[in-house]
């Protein structure tokens, strides 16, 4: 146990608060229910539910559930449910003492124009919500943004201050100075290990299957574990509960479809997407033809019947993705990756203010490099993650909440490779992580909220991961109605990492392994504080500052020349910055601008350097404009100061062994070799790019059609991706490119 004093204080604090609440519990009434879309029964997440008479309310969670506690009983109230893009609905509700009144609400969508122009994902009614560094992204927001070649949730994260990438050519993202494998990506609560198609160009998560996304840049609460930088929690759609439907879509790269509909006491949804033409990918690969094929399939089946369990919902869901690079040439190598995910979820809402979630899942990733007759060496990685987790949330009459959870995760990992000089690495491991968490949400004061808790890892996946605590605190203090101060602090551990060479800006193989016993689990400490300003309706402004310490981060040993050298070295990291976000949203405009000033450092083996994703200044301007009659225009301008690169100092003539003749050094055995400067000390030129998009939506009989055209890099900026030292070639990112999409919905 690393932090006995801190954890002891937290546990004492929790114990006192819990006792206090049991002692002072009262018996007012409660209102709860699910908010759904009336046309398809999909849960509406993060929408507002408001009781005018008592000026209180709640927002729905990621499953569409809301709960308003401690409503004075014996009265009738007006319950107003609103969500941008839907008709506001007001209902009369009579609240009885000590009873949970169930009020499910189905909202009717508004016209096409209004849905598309307004920013979906309203602010939560609760003024004391502990949500610093949390971004909620709706699919409708994604639909309006310039799509590029393919609508992609990861690429759209880049508009959030604090999230960076190393270029147009990859959807891999880095959050507040953390590396790529430190981002947790969950689909319905289950980890996806390789979330990228096509060498990292696109995410495997098809936006068509998404209901909601919560993205934590840091300071995330105790229920999340396993990563030290960020969390993306994606909830998939349930499927239309009212009627059968079909959607089809086409882009320059993929064709996709979605089928959904009702089943007795439930619904289903199946989506599929596959690449059919990879000509457009040449633009990403410096005009190289790369024979990539990929597909992904997602499905979900929901069942809810009072005959079996009242107020229970059962879901079975799955996800498959597969990528293949095959040159159809026995002399060339072949690459294969696949994710398979299967999960079961039982959501239970109890008569008392308690709800729980049981999840059982299996998530696998398999990646393989098959050399055939090429000079490459075989590489293979397989991860099997079996997880059972149980989460429970108790809500007290005074609105305070207790969250408890237990998680059992077993990982079966296999990583085999032969490096270029024939040294084999066989890392096989089977390990289990049993962890639990407890947290207390102090929400009884309207202008103050506190979420304090800790995880405790009873056993760890790695030899040094057991018996460790991860305490976390997040708070909000709204000292005047229009200004809220928010802060968070937490300790985070990570025991599964990718063996990724930092010098690779496009990486074909990112194998996952359990951190070896000669290293400690990766550990980070987040310090975050900021202000939210809400002075005028339609205008929101926030400032956040953060400081993140990274310890024991595993870095690939680029000086591993023999099998006795370690594969990984332990490094440290530090990052800090300030982030500004401004949003102005009044029909028919929506303007979002963001700016981040940030620093990131890593230190490995005594060398301090900037990681490749460290950009001092990043800014984005997003404009959306509803032109009316189904036309929507948008533009995005991205700016980033230069990313680090290692400068060339010169060249020298290096000796290469001639194994046919070791008798002496001769002139033919020397070739020019790059003499590099200090790692990442140089900076590439600034990056900026403007994308435009125009969407036309129309309905013909019962068919909704969406036509989209996007212009990428409108002014054809030559943003440098990298400098090829072997050829002297400057390789640029995406040039000006016109793309189109078509979507049909029945």
């Amino acid at each position, binding site marked *: 146990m690393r932090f006995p004093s801190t954890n002891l204080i937290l546990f004492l604090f929790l114990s006192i608060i819990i006792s206090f609440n049991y002692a002072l519990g009262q018996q007012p009434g409660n209102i709860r229910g699910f908010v759904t879309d009336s046309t398809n029964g999909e849960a509406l997440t993060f929408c507002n539910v408001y009781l005018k008479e008592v000026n209180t309310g709640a927002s729905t969670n990621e499953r569409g559930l809301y709960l308003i506690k401690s409503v004075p009983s014996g009265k009738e109230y007006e319950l107003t449910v609103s969500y941008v893009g839907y008709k506001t609905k007001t209902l009369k509700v009579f609240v009885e003492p000590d009873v949970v009144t169930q009020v499910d609400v189905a909202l009717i969508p508004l016209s096409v124009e209004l849905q598309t122009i307004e920013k979906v994902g309203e602010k939560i009614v609760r003024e004391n919500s502990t949500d610093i560094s949390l971004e909620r992204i709706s699919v409708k927001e994604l639909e309006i943004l310039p799509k590029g070649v393919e609508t992609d949730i990861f690429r759209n994260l880049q508009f959030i201050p604090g999230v960076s990438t190393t270029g147009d050519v990859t959807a891999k993202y880095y959050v507040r100075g953390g590396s790529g494998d430190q981002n947790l990506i969950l689909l319905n609560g289950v980890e996806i290990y390789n979330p990228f198609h096509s060498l990292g160009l696109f995410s495997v998560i098809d936006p068509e299957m998404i209901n909601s996304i919560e993205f934590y840049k840091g300071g995330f609460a105790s229920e999340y574990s396993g990563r030290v930088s960020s969390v993306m929690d994606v909830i998939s759609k349930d499927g239309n509960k009212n009627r059968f439907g079909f959607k089809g879509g086409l882009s320059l790269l993929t064709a996709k479809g979605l089928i959904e509909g009702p089943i007795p006491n439930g619904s289903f949804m199946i989506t599929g997407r596959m690449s059919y033409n990879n000509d457009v990918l040449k633009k990403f690969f410096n005009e190289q033809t790369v024979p990539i094929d990929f597909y992904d399939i997602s499905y979900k089946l929901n069942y809810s019947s009072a005959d079996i369990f009242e107020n229970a919902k059962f879901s079975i869901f799955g996800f498959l993705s597969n990528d293949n690079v095959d040159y159809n040439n026995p002399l060339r190598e072949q*690459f294969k990756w696949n994710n398979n995910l299967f999960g079961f979820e039982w959501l239970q809402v109890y008569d008392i203010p308690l709800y729980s979630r049981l999840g059982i899942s299996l998530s696998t990733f398999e990646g393989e490099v098959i050399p055939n007759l090429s000079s490459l060496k075989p590489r293979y990685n397989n991860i099997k993650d079996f997880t059972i987790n149980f989460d429970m949330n108790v809500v007290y009459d005074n609105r305070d909440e207790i969250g408890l959870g237990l998680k059992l995760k077993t990982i079966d990992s296999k990583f085999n490779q032969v*490096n270029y000089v024939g040294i084999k690495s066989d890392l096989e491991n089977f390990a289990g992580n049993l962890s639990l968490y407890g947290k207390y949400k102090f929400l009884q004061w309207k202008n103050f909220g506190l979420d304090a808790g800790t995880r405790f890892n009873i056993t760890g996946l790695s030899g040094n991961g057991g018996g460790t605590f991860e305490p976390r605190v997040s708070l909000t203090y709204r000292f005047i109605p229009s200004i809220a101060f928010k802060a968070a602090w937490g300790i985070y551990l990570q025991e599964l990492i990718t063996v990724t060479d930092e010098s690779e800006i496009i990486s074909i193989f990112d194998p996952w392994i359990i951190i070896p016993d000669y290293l400690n689990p990766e550990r980070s400490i987040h310090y975050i504080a900021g202000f939210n300003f809400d002075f005028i309706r339609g205008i929101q402004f926030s400032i956040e500052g953060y400081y993140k310490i990274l310890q024991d981060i595993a870095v690939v040993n680029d000086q591993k020349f023999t099998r006795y050298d370690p594969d990984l070295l332990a490094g440290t990291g530090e990052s800090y910055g300030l982030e500004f976000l401004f949003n102005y949203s009044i029909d028919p405009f929506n303007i979002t601008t963001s700016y981040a000033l940030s620093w990131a450092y890593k230190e490995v083996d005594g060398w301090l350097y900037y990681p490749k994703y460290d950009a001092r200044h990043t800014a984005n301007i997003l404009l959306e404009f509803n032109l009316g009659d189904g036309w929507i225009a948008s533009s995005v301008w991205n700016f980033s100061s230069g990313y680090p690169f290692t400068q060339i100092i010169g060249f*020298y003539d*290096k000796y290469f062994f001639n194994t046919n003749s070791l008798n002496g050094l001769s002139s033919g055995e020397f070739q020019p070799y790059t003499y590099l400067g200090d790692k990442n000390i140089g900076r590439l*030129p600034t990056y900026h790019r403007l994308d435009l998009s125009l969407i036309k939506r129309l309905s013909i009989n019962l068919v909704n059609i969406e036509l989209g055209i996007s212009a990428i890099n409108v002014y054809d900026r030559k943003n440098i991706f990298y*400098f090829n030292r072997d050829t*002297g070639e400057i390789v640029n990112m995406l040039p000006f490119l016109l793309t189109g999409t078509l979507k049909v919905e029945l």
Partner: protein
Amino acid sequence: MSVRKAIGFIFIGVFLISCNEDFNPYGDYVEKYAFTCILKSNENFQTATLFKSYRPDGYDPYTYTTDPSIVGADIRVWYNDTVFVFSDSSVTREDTSRYKTPFSFYYNNKFFVGNRKTIELEVLLPNGKRLRSNSLTPGQITFDNNSEVIIPPIGKNIVQVIWKTLDEGTFFLPKLAIRYEQKINGEVVYKEKDIPTRYVTQGNELTPVYPVPNASITVVYQMNAVIKALQEISASDPNKNNYAVFQNLLFSCIAFDQPSSRYLSSTGGNVDDLTVSVDVADYSNIEGGFGLFGSYSQKKYTRLRFLQDYIESFGYNFIVED
């Protein structure tokens, strides 16, 4: 100025800044030096090279045509409590497409290295700068009794040789050759034919695969590779009687010291075509410079023999040895 005009100017400004900025991948130049010397155990002619770094006008190093060799350096190697001073010399360059001058090198022909001995280096450059290094020569290798002794082996279609070493992290380079004599115009000429470990089919052709330095302490030769090598001795000659194969094959194994093994490892890499790696690892054990100061030793395995009947089945004569 109205807000609309201001926005208009901003957009025009954005379009104007689309012009490309100059990019210079070079940092401030500091001259460094590359020294290479691999001492041998099987002969006493030791060589070394010394070059300075350079920067071409553009980014293509092959456009730099000024010979970077440094002459006049004082190179000393300490071995077995004795100092060996290297002299500079030069030979005709094989490839003059880049540098036109003779190839400069340093040599000493008075020592060869044994096993597990400390070697130390000091180079004093003409400009007064010094390079230093040290290493430990590789340990003795011994051949395992389970190694093959007869070709063709009984009941197997592979020939395996196994060896042992006390060193850790060292690389080996095995080599197997057929020794034979060929009558050419009545004159007997001694020749050696290297045997690959296997052949692979590339298109319609068979390509031999020879051992490369690696950390394995065994090597396996496919019998069909041995057969093909034996056939290739006289491939274009119908008169097999012109050839006589020695009973004993030539098997040698070179053991590299640790720095040489690391150097080999660092230069042997190749990644796939799709991965884009912007930095390269560079190993050197030269303090204050680049390059390598290392050594290797060679050990021969003398128990591997052809059977007479087997050689004669190819139509060759057989030379019996003790």
